[in-house]
């Protein structure tokens, strides 16, 4: 800090030079400045060495100028024009050309703008125009398939939820995994499944950790990035390698996505309006048998497999079909799903002059969920005001506000009463259709009730002034201050009519998040002679985050008119609040050097200190270096410039970091649990919440045994990344090709380590794992036809190969088995993260005689005491000990995608355009939890549940056509028998390779047809631009048979159907500018 202050003084002293007027004769000059649409107001008209004026609202100006002086006409977004004055002129007409360079040739890389041509790092910039019309509220979802190496999986179709985003492979490894999005643990696990990139919006790093989901499993679950309308984005840059991300060193390990929002542009006031409307299509779900059909199908199974003796166990629901309680035909899914509407309106107004520029953007987005009562509404206001206080001093103030309403379906409310988490698109089945449902129940389940069920709101306000001071030609200074406050509320009410107790349940959760940031940078740019160009950036960044949450819940509310927390029964009510804080201090230095503009060198040194670590281990150093060589600028290739526009070779090496992102802020403290009086049985059976906080009335305090032991040695995770890249562009940039190969080694990876049992503690967060991601990325952009052609065809293709392995594990590298809900995984050195670890299923026993005999006992092979019979699965006894247990599991597939990418084809002819965009994910194994769930419920799942037909009786019946299950001895079946009475009860156990399948898919993501009116034809309406278009989103998926949607798979490779189906969307849109 001191250094910067000193430098400031020096800089100010240097910056005082002022020009002086020379002698000459003054003449009057006046005229008009225009661009290709008409007169331009606000253009700076400056006489060299003096102050100037700006053009009036009709583009006119006049001043007195000495002969021999030069007038400069300048305006942001236009190429500057100079005119030497030789005589008086009253009718000057100046045309300013739009400056294309400004838009496309400069990128922002961590605190500074750099010419694309001289970038030595692996970056990709994305024109937001390619994604702005797609009907989805969040831009991270829209990055899917657009950028080589960026793996985005939109595993849920629920509007406004986060997607998983991994750049160059996942490095997040957890000891506990859960895919159950209806539980707190599952939500937290899924929120942390993938090491997501750092988002930087207008120079402000964002905290995207959903603290509420991580800490409490509640909160709104809304993607915070949903607050930024795509129309407000000017540029998206993805920083991939260490040299690019290093300036955000501590958090750059998983890449950085920088978003620059649109700013005001001096000139004529421009008004843009765009809107689209459409609908989301109700998904076509797997068939479920209903009513009498269901009863008959169940009876058929029972009669087919059962014997006379089993008839005594027949459930009443199947036999007493005249009973009004059992003779219903509820079509649950028909009631739950709907077609939804989507509406989006964007309105922006921008303009300004040389003193002030402004832009205001307004957006309203509304998407109905395809599950009733769910959806997303967004209101945003985005303003940007630039004040040019002096020619070298600007203050730009960004004020952004958004509100998101994301009501959720019954699913979350019912606490995961599984069938309603997404219909029978779920591994947990619906109840049988025969049961009587009271009208009140129906209304609630189907979302037809007026009773307020789920309000889920986020409000965010951010204010961010930035100061740019061009101290002198060589020195410049920049400050960014940002203050952001986000409030979320989540209010739910579950009416008593729906609950067993008959009493209502209300919960209210509110949180506040404050983020404060200040960064200061000082730049020095100079040249040594003609050829050596040096740019030095020194800076400091400071961030502080505070999070507060309050939660109150009350059970036992006796009247459903009340839908707020009202404590009637204090033992069934809970409340808590929380406070979390963390901070980061960063100092960085970057040096850019080039020789003749073709030999490029860049280095970054970054020191980060985080409050999350203990005093001695706070600071991490993240250096990086990169070099580039623009080969095409060499004299031996100069004469090839007719076809070779650019050839550049790049290389970089650097270290980036990551800090614990699981919501733990105080890992260096051995913290305590206050009110630790719980014991088995101390929970309130209604709420499940612990009710005992004391011992004999005295508050009990004891260490937090889950991770509460301090680790003063904990420090940053370090990723060392090497990257080699090649940029080629041909035929005047009509074809361009970018390839990058990289190896990223993550050491000291943050992982929970098991601590010795005798400490009493279970795990501790520590630096204990090593992973490696290596891969190759390629991007090809082709404009097949010359720009002069009326027909245009453009292809944008990208593909990325990534290989991910675990390189080191704690405790001498022993394998770590992870039980993740129904399935299990393994971490093994040299193999990918989270491989499935299952019984190898080799088939189905055709007959009883095929079952092998245990060599030790002489009895047929068995599982949990139930001997195998014909129709049971054949699981390989890998160690040959005659007992099937988890020592027979084998590593059997990789849930991490090996190949991801996308391609976009854009055809245009005159005013028409057609765009087809596809994304693909290949080389991935996924787990069909949906199928195993659906079938396993037709057979008993445990031993002690009354009659053997309990599961069959209590579950809906899926359509079995096309499922080759074992029915008779000798059948060559794909799936086990559906007998409830013979064979092992666990024939549909989830820990089997039978449920693995290929996760490859290619999705035709969007198809758009557009028509742009010619400017001349709409001019009479006062318009400068008018475009109409129609779009289909998620048109079709090509995939292997099995799961209904190979994209709706979570980061652990699980398709369980509990998620929200990804709907097809049809929209019509309109875009216009005044």
């Amino acid at each position: 800090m001191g250094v910067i202050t000193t430098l400031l003084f020096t800089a100010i002293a240097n910056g005082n030079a002022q020009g002086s007027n020379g002698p000459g004769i003054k003449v009057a000059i006046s005229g008009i400045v225009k661009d290709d649409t008409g007169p331009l107001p606000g253009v700076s008209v400056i006489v060299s060495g003096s102050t100037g004026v700006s053009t009036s609202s009709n583009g006119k100006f006049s001043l007195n100028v000495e002969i021999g002086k030069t007038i400069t006409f300048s305006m942001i977004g236009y190429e500057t024009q100079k005119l030497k004055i030789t005589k008086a002129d009253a009718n000057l007409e100046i045309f300013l050309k739009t400056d294309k360079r400004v838009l496309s040739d400069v990128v922002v890389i961590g605190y500074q703008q750099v010419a694309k041509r001289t970038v030595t790092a692996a970056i990709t910039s994305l024109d937001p125009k390619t994604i702005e019309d797609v009907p989805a509220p969040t831009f991270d979802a829209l990055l899917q398939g657009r950028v080589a190496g960026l793996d985005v999986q939109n595993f849920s179709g629920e509007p406004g939820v986060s997607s998983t985003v991994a750049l160059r492979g996942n490095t997040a490894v957890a000891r506990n995994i859960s895919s159950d999005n209806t539980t707190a643990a599952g939500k937290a696990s899924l929120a942390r499944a993938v090491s997501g990139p750092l988002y930087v919006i207008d120079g402000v790093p964002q905290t995207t950790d959903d603290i509420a989901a991580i800490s409490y499993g509640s909160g709104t679950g809304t993607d915070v990035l949903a607050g930024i309308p795509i129309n407000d984005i000017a540029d998206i840059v993805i920083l991939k390698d260490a040299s690019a991300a290093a300036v955000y060193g501590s958090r750059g390990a998983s890449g950085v996505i920088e978003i620059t929002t649109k700013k005001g542009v001096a000139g004529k006031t421009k008004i843009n309006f765009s809107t689209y409307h459409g609908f989301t299509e109700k998904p076509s779900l797997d068939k479920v048998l209903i009513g009498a059909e269901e009863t008959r199908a169940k009876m058929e199974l029972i009669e087919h497999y059962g014997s006379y003796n089993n008839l005594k166990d027949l459930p009443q629901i199947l036999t007493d079909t005249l009973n009004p309680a059992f003779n219903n035909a509820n079509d649950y899914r028909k009631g739950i799903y709907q077609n939804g509407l989507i509406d989006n309106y964007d309105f922006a107004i921008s303009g300004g002059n040389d003193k002030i520029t402004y832009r205001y953007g307004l957006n309203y987005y509304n998407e109905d969920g395809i599950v009733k009562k769910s959806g997303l509404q967004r209101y945003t206001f985005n303003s940007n005001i630039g004040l040019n206080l002096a020619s070298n001093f600007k203050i730009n103030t960004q004020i952004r506000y958004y509100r998101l309403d994301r009501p959720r379906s019954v699913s979350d409310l019912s606490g995961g009463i599984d069938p309603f988490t997404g219909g029978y698109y779920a591994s947990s089945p619906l109840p049988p259709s025969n049961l009587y449902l009271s009208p009140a129940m129906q209304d609630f389940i189907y979302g037809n009730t007026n009773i307020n069920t789920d309000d889920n709101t986020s409000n965010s306000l951010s204010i961010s002034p930035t100061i740019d001071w061009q101290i002198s030609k060589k020195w410049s200074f920049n400050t960014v201050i940002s203050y952001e406050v986000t409030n979320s509320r989540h209010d739910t009410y579950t009416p008593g009519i729906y609950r067993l107790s008959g009493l209502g349940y209300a919960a209210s959760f509110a949180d506040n998040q404050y983020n404060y940031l200040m960064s200061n940078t000082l730049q020095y740019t100079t040249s040594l002679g003609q050829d050596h160009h040096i740019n030095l950036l020194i800076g400091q960044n400071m961030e502080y985050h505070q999070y507060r949450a309050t939660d109150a819940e009350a059970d036992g509310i006796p009247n459903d008119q009340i839908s707020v927390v009202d404590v009637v029964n204090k033992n069934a009510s809970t409340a808590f609040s929380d406070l979390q804080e963390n901070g980061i201090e960063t100092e960085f230095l970057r040096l850019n050097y080039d020789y003749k503009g073709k030999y490029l060198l860049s280095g970054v040194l970054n020191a980060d200190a985080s409050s999350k670590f203990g005093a001695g281990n706070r600071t991490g150093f993240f250096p990086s270096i990169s070099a580039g060589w623009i080969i095409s600028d060499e004299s031996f290739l100069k004469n090839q410039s007719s076809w070779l526009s650019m050839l550049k070779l790049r290389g970089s090496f650097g270290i980036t970091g990551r800090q614990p992102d699981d919501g733990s802020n105080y890992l260096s403290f051995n913290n305590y649990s206050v009110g630790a009086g719980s014991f088995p049985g101390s929970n309130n059976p209604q709420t499940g919440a612990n009710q005992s906080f004391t011992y004999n009335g005295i508050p009990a305090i004891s260490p937090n045994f889950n991770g509460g032991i301090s680790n003063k040695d904990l420090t940053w995770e370090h990723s060392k990344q090497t990257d080699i890249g090649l940029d080629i562009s041909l035929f005047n940039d009509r074809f361009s090709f970018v390839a990058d190969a990289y190896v990223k080694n993550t050491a000291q990876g943050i992982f929970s380590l098991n601590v010795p049992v005798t400490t009493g503690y279970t795990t501790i967060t520590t630096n204990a794992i090593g992973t490696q991601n290596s891969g190759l990325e390629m991007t090809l952009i082709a404009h097949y036809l010359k720009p002069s052609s009326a027909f245009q065809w453009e292809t944008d293709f990208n593909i990325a190969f990534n290989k991910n392995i675990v390189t080191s594990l704690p405790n001498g590298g022993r394998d770590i088995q992870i039980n993740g809900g129904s399935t299990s995984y393994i971490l093994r050195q040299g193999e990918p993260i989270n491989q499935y670890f299952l019984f190898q299923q080799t088939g189905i026993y055709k007959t009883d005689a095929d079952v092998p005999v245990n060599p030790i006992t002489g009895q047929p092979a068995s599982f949990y005491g139930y001997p195998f019979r014909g129709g049971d699965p054949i699981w390989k006894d890998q160690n040959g000990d005659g007992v099937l247990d988890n020592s027979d599991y084998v590593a059997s597939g990789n849930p991490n995608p090996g190949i991801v990418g996308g391609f976009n084809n854009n055809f245009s002819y005159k005013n028409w355009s057609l765009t087809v965009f596809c994304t693909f994910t290949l080389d991935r194994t996924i787990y069909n939890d949906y199928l195993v769930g659906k079938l396993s419920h037709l057979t008993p799942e445990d031993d002690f549940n009354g009659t053997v037909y309990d599961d069959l009786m209590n579950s809906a019946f899926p359509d079995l056509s096309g499922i080759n299950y074992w029915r008779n001895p000798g059948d060559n079946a794909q799936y086990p028998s559906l007998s409830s009475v013979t064979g092992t009860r666990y024939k549909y156990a989830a820990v089997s390779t039978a449920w693995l399948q290929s996760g490859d898919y290619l999705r035709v993501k969007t198809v758009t047809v557009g028509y742009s009116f010619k400017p001349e034809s709409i001019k009479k309406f006062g318009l400068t631009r008018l475009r109409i278009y129609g779009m289909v989103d998620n048109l079709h998926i090509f995939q292997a048979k099995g799961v209904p949607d190979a994209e709706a798979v979570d980061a652990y490779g699980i398709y369980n159907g509990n998620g929200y189906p990804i709907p097809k969307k049809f929209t019509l849109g309109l875009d216009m500018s005044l």
Partner: protein
Amino acid sequence: MTKYFKNSIIGLSLIAGLCGAVSCKKILDLQPHDSTFTAAYFTNGEDANTAIAGAYALLRSTLLNNSSFHVFGDVPAGEFSINSNFDDANYNISNGQFNGLNVGPGIWNWQSNYQLIQQINLIINKVPGIDISKFTNHDDKQQIIGEAYFLRAFIYFYMSRVWGDVPLKLAPDLDLSTAQNIPRTPAASVLKQCLKDLQVAEADLKYGYADVSQTAVRANKGAAMALQAHIKEWMGDYAGCDTATNAVITQGGYALADSANYSKVFIGKSTEGIFEINIDYSQSEGLSPNDGGYVPTMAAPFLAKKTNLEWPLNTNYFNTLYTDTNDIRIKKFFFQPQSNAGQTIKYSNITYADGSTQNDPRLSNNIIIFRLADIDLLRAEALNNLGRDQEALVLLNKVRTRANTPALENITGEELGTEILQERLRELFYEGQSYYDMVRTKTLGTYNTLMKDQFMNGSPLGGWLWPIDPNMFKDDFTLTQTPYWQGKL
């Protein structure tokens, strides 16, 4: 730019820079506000008191975890014929089919025991350093330290009876760097350490209670002496046991509850209670069988709407012991003992949280660990072993009379020993003692014929000891399996 303007910028930049520099430290040195931590805790009497409450709460949780208090102390004795349909895991134990693996792993993982030990070690490490002036009348520094030593002795004795050799850890882990794997310490050394801890406890604790609300549910000198007696009896030091039990009986101020108030003994805090674990719905510390709590010996009508009886009484066992039909314990302890669904209703103080709807029962019966009748009979056993049968008989008859069974006369030696043991089995049914009594007196095979030989006492490898969870070996190379079970799981 005007000069004024320039100065403002310089000023602003300076202020910004200064603020930054000042906040550097502030934003990095953040302390948790959602919990306390060692440096902020253990600063006054209130902290010491909540810490010792935390220790008792951990002990309560440990004993209730998977009902391990009864699974260790009662099930292997054969008191129940567990219904395999409702409790498969514990059925394997009661039916002699335990093979080391077929129980719930929570039973034999000692994580929760070491949580308690960490807590106690923290108290022993930190509380003596708190200045006496920071204590108020409510928090007695000396008593809290004494209780901590008592609890450490108790838990190590408890563990040693279950597993034999256990890792002996006497200092807290304050940071990961001290968290080492440590091997199992021989049982003899563990018991020696228990007695050493008890010496400290006995010096720090007093008989009786200054605060009557702490009766029996907090350790006092009586509890410490009772524990000492149990340890010495277990070690075969009958003279030592005699001295300790004598102290409890003569100085402790305890009295047997009369027959009319007998059931209240099992609610807790009675005149007879020496050491108990608090479970009381009125203090929001009730046990809910419907969410995590396990009340396997009762069903309707004692637990309304509960139909499954997981642990029916073993009628054979009952018939062997309760031969006198005038014994008031038959009615107080059991419901329909001759049926195949005999319930044990010793702990049946139920309140329904939802009133007459009766869907939400909460149990308020303390876990009875030591009580006077137990100590009387323990002393009788010691005296019998020391050849002082007349004195033993007096104590035995004291318990028999309260139970409305006739006093015994003129029996001595082994015969008396058997009577004392059987009286213990009758009196202390389902109090987590019977199995250890049988192991101590080497009579397990007599009362539980279903037990396979691994549970027989005298097996050279200690087969009556429990195996430990193989999961604990995963990351621990120093730990070894209990000798009898090595190579068996």
